[in-house]
């Protein structure tokens, strides 16, 4: 029952595909569209945007990107475009479910196992509202959920983790038992004085070692965000945009730098922290 609980919070996650992050596929499409050297680069960009569209579902921004690639294939140049990429929240962290079983069996007083589980971070800005030209109001939409990607990764890994943990528990139990058994045998041979005390010390040491090492692997990449979102629009003539969180608590104005294709990269760690804004000129 405890083992079933380990991955129960991963069952409702939407899966993309193994080892696929739609955000990196999107960046691949963006790069090969903007910096295409020949027709095969444009074909690659088209395929990347197609794949992202399949991963994330119906998305008007990606449809506009596909139309832009089609335009380039027909010698129609890119129009001035700004992309707002929004990195919001924090990736899930790992906690552990620890099972400690006192057996009340003198030869093996303790058995233990620990399994990792994900704790999702829900203190985040759900989306951004971008206002361009004072009237053009757009919202960022989900491109990649790191919750889903990391959750799927752990879910796939879980059978191996459970097997390795159970093997480790068995080895520790066997080592404890055989150490005690060896002490007992020496006591019976008469080769060990105070065999009873030595046996007890062996059991205390082995049990302490098992308890101290009963920890799951809790290492995670904590600087990753919870979600990557995107929004694209024609660069306004005054090159000024206003960015606000969906709850209206954070607002900032950005003047877009020179360029035909620009990225405004907005990072928000949680729902109260101020935005970190940077810009990249792609073309």
């Amino acid at each position: 029952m405890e083992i079933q609980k380990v991955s129960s919070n991963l069952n409702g996650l939407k899966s993309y595909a193994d080892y696929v992050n739609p955000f990196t596929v999107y960046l691949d499409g963006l790069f090969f569209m903007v910096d295409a050297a020949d027709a095969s680069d444009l074909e690659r960009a088209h395929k990347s945007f197609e794949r992202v569209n399949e991963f994330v579902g119906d998305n008007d921004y990606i449809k506009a990107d596909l139309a832009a690639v089609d335009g380039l294939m027909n010698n129609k140049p890119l129009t001035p475009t700004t992309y707002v990429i929004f990195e919001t929240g924090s990736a899930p962290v790992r906690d552990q479910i620890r099972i400690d079983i006192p057996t009340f069996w003198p030869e093996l007083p303790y058995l233990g196992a620990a399994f990792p589980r994900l704790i999702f971070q829900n203190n985040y800005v759900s989306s951004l509202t971008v206002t361009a030209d004072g009237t053009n109001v757009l919202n960022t939409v989900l491109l990649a959920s790191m919750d889903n990607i990391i959750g799927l990764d752990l879910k796939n890994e879980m059978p191996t983790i459970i097997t390795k943990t159970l093997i480790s528990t068995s080895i520790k139990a066997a080592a404890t038992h055989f150490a005690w058994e060896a002490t007992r045998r020496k006591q019976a041979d008469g080769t060990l004085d105070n065999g009873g005390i030595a046996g007890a010390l062996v059991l205390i040491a082995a049990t302490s070692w098992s308890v101290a090492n009963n920890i799951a692997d809790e290492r995670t990449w904590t600087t990753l965000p919870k979600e990557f979102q995107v929004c694209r629009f024609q660069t306004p003539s005054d090159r000024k945009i206003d960015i606000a969180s969906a709850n209206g608590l954070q607002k900032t104005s950005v003047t877009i730098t020179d360029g035909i294709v620009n990225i405004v990269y907005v990072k928000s760690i949680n729902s109260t922290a101020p935005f970190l804004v940077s810009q990249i000129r792609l073309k």
Partner: protein
Amino acid sequence: MKHKAIHLLFVAFSVVCIIAGCGTPAHYVKTGDAEQIINVGQLNIQDYPAAAHDAITNLLASGALDRVATPPAVLYVSRIINDTGLQIDPDLLTKKISIALHNTGKAVTTTTDSTTKGLIEKDIFLNGSSAGRMPDFTLSGKITDIYDRAGNTTRHTYSFQLSLNDTKTGNQVWEGETEIGKQGTRASVGVW
């Protein structure tokens, strides 16, 4: 004691042999050799020359390139649509076709090099016209992937569909299709 030492030496030697035996030493291979890696779910390097060879043989046999007023025919390589779920570089197919056509002397392809295009534009700007010739044909096509599955066995059929289009009439003067089928258990890789 002596027996124990020999036993330990034997175990250590066996472990070294097993570890050493796990790797394959690096060596050169030629595309199309007997030694090939085959993936069911993707196109391998030997699949492109096979499809290109099939297309060139059929195209030359059709005689379509011979029916131009002033040989060699000028060919523009247009879009090869990738209708598979894979990232494919169409140049792996089209480059082999254009190299083979150049070598026959029956066709030349228009350049995609931006520097050359810039020089032509400069020539047009300075002289009002260029000595360049409009393409007689365009080569277009599509690569598709049909996927079938029964139990644990999957089959991918990749179809390379190519068309030669006459730029004056708009007619397709040649069409060719090459199918490459691969079958195996899921996620299997073979060495043939």
